[in-house]
């Protein structure tokens, strides 16, 4: 799967402008889906299977967008001021390199440049693309950029920007590849604008009108030095999410996911995330309501330019998803 993941994380796809990623996905799923659509907000919706006896209409969701920056001002000397597009932490700004949608690259500097041990606030930072003045600057107000960092394959572990949630996108593509027969009608939604409020999932879920929704996204871990307590560890398997700050998974879906994983011998962890949410929270309150769950890929340094996942966790996520979707889905009585 690494050959699938690499181009995905290297693509430039800030919230609202996911075209590059969408085209990559479209190419990688050619011939795999029965029907492919792009909706009003740019969601890519690929249907596989037609509802059969005992089957369910299921929506899977992984988001194509990544966090980034938007230019707010270009000064007389060609320095670019910016604000965040999605959850950008100021600590990761200074010294970072960025790439705009038009290909222009630059570096982030800050005012008071002799302060050596403080992270500057976002409004004290600027992007330097090497322009000499405003007229010569190839960037204008409203242009969007993402962080740039080379992809790193450490064997067991992968490091890159935008593993959130290109790794989820890769898992959906791979699951689509591996799924043979299914009694279910599956909608693989490669969603947009998750990082600015799970917006794409709202409209995709309305259109798909599923009976069950599963999001694939990254989650934090509690396994780095002196970090916030969390019972998720890299390498111990994908998680079955019980709760995050935006929603509670349907308990029947949690039990079904756990049973399936245990039966198939797939390692998994239980997850409660206290800050952060996924597309599932939007799917859950669509129309008359949808039972939802989430499979999370444990990820260190989320929303930094160097996120890290465990490759086996990714492979096991695919295994779990395929196991869940291949059979009849029976949720217990409420």
């Amino acid at each position, binding site marked *: 799967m690494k050959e699938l993941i690499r181009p995905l994380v290297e693509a430039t796809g800030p919230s609202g402008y996911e075209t590059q990623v969408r085209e990559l996905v479209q190419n990688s799923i050619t011939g795999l889906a029965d029907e492919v659509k792009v909706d009003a907000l740019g969601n890519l919706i690929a249907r596989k299977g037609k509802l059969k006896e005992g089957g369910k209409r299921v929506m899977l969701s992984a988001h194509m967008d990544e966090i980034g920056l938007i230019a707010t001002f270009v000064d007389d000397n060609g320095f670019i001021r910016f604000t965040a597009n999605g959850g950008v932490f100021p600590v990761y700004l200074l010294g970072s390199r960025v790439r705009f949608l038009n290909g222009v690259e630059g570096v982030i500097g800050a005012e008071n440049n002799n302060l050596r041990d403080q992270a500057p606030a976002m409004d004290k930072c600027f992007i330097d693309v090497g322009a000499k003045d405003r007229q010569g600057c190839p960037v204008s107000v409203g242009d969007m950029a993402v962080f740039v960092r080379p992809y790193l394959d450490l064997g067991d572990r992968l490091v890159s920007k935008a593993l959130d949630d290109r790794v989820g996108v890769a898992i959906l593509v791979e699951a689509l590849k591996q799924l043979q027969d299914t009694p279910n009608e599956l909608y693989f939604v490669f969603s947009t604008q998750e990082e600015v409020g799970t917006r794409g999932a709202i409209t995709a879920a309305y259109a798909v009108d599923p*009976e069950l929704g599963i999001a694939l996204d990254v989650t934090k871990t509690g396994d780095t030095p002196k970090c*916030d*307590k*969390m*019972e998720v560890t890299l390498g111990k398997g994908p998680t079955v999410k*019980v*709760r995050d700050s*935006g*929603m*509670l*998974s*349907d*308990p029947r879906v*949690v039990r079904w996911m756990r049973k399936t994983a245990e039966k198939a011998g797939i390692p998994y962890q*239980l*997850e*409660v995330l*206290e800050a952060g949410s996924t597309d599932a*929270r939007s799917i*859950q*309150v*669509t*129309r*008359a*309501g*949808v*039972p939802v769950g989430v499979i999370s890929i444990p990820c260190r340094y989320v929303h930094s330019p160097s996120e890290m996942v465990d490759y086996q966790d990714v492979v096991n996520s695919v295994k779990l998803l395929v196991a869940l979707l291949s059979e009849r889905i029976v949720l217990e009585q*409420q």
Partner: protein
Amino acid sequence: MTDIKQFLNELLSLPGLSAYEGPAREHIASTWKPLVDEMQVSPIGSLHALKKGFGSEPRPRILLAAHMDAIGMMVTGVTDGFLSFTEIGGIDPRLLPGLRVTVHAKRNLPGIIVMPRDALLPERKSETPVEMKYLFIDLGLSAAETAELVQIGDLVSFAQEPVELPNGIITGHSLDNRASVAAVTACLEEMHNVQHAWDVWAVATAQEEETLGGGFTAPFAIRPDLAVAIDVTFAKGPGASDWRTFPLGKGVSLGIGSNVHPGFFKAVKEVADKLDIPVHNELMPRGSGTDALAMQIVADGITTLVIGIPLRYMHTPVEMVAMKDIQRAGHLLASFIATLPVDFMQNLKWDD
């Protein structure tokens, strides 16, 4: 004949945290069954019950929403026999130290909430409230036993049995919003053999405390013409005495503000005045904190109203409410529905 007080007491002893409302829902369903024509459970766990009106279809529909989910906590980790936890719904961590709880693990386990001494916490001024992430639950069991019985995601509820105080005052946890569920039950009970033109949908909504999930999804399925959220409101008491508060036991509140259609308010107020049911105007300058906030903006918009039952010590294990106010809310709803004319919506206007 449903004894509302008994129904409420039984309900208060059943767990039913947001998204895990099962036990509460089952009790409500069995009580409502003889009082309604149809019942279903929604995809996210709300209970929808229909009591049909008379006359030919299509009949106009009124939805009565009372959320049945309660606040509580959830286990986030098990370390050396001590449980870390997070909240479900909004909890003031300052009322947790020393509280008795029930952990719904492989079996129900009694526990207490432990506040570590300051020396074992990050540097702070003495007696600063301890954040929830540093509190523990102690089950009094060995680490091995605890690890065997408890896992991440297990629910924790307040272990406080309801207590009755003189003159029909009930205190306990989850009166927010089981008191309103009791009011809706009282309404159904009163309408049991009464003919009414409108279809009445009684909905015990799920997940109000977390996402207003039931408030968004029930009206989408039902598409009512009118929707009422019955929820608790603030009763006057220690630290609660301003314009947002109402005397305990002296009547229910009717919402005024953007979340309430003025014509709907007027019609219900008229019924209250005619029947001498004491009601207070509850100002909601920026919308209500109830299911009505969601219901009003579902699909192409719904005409909404909020009825409030005054309650002291909201979101604590010792909430306090007056049975009289619960009865009043139920009676007001039943009376309004009984006299609701079939063409009410056609005559409902915004401006004179």
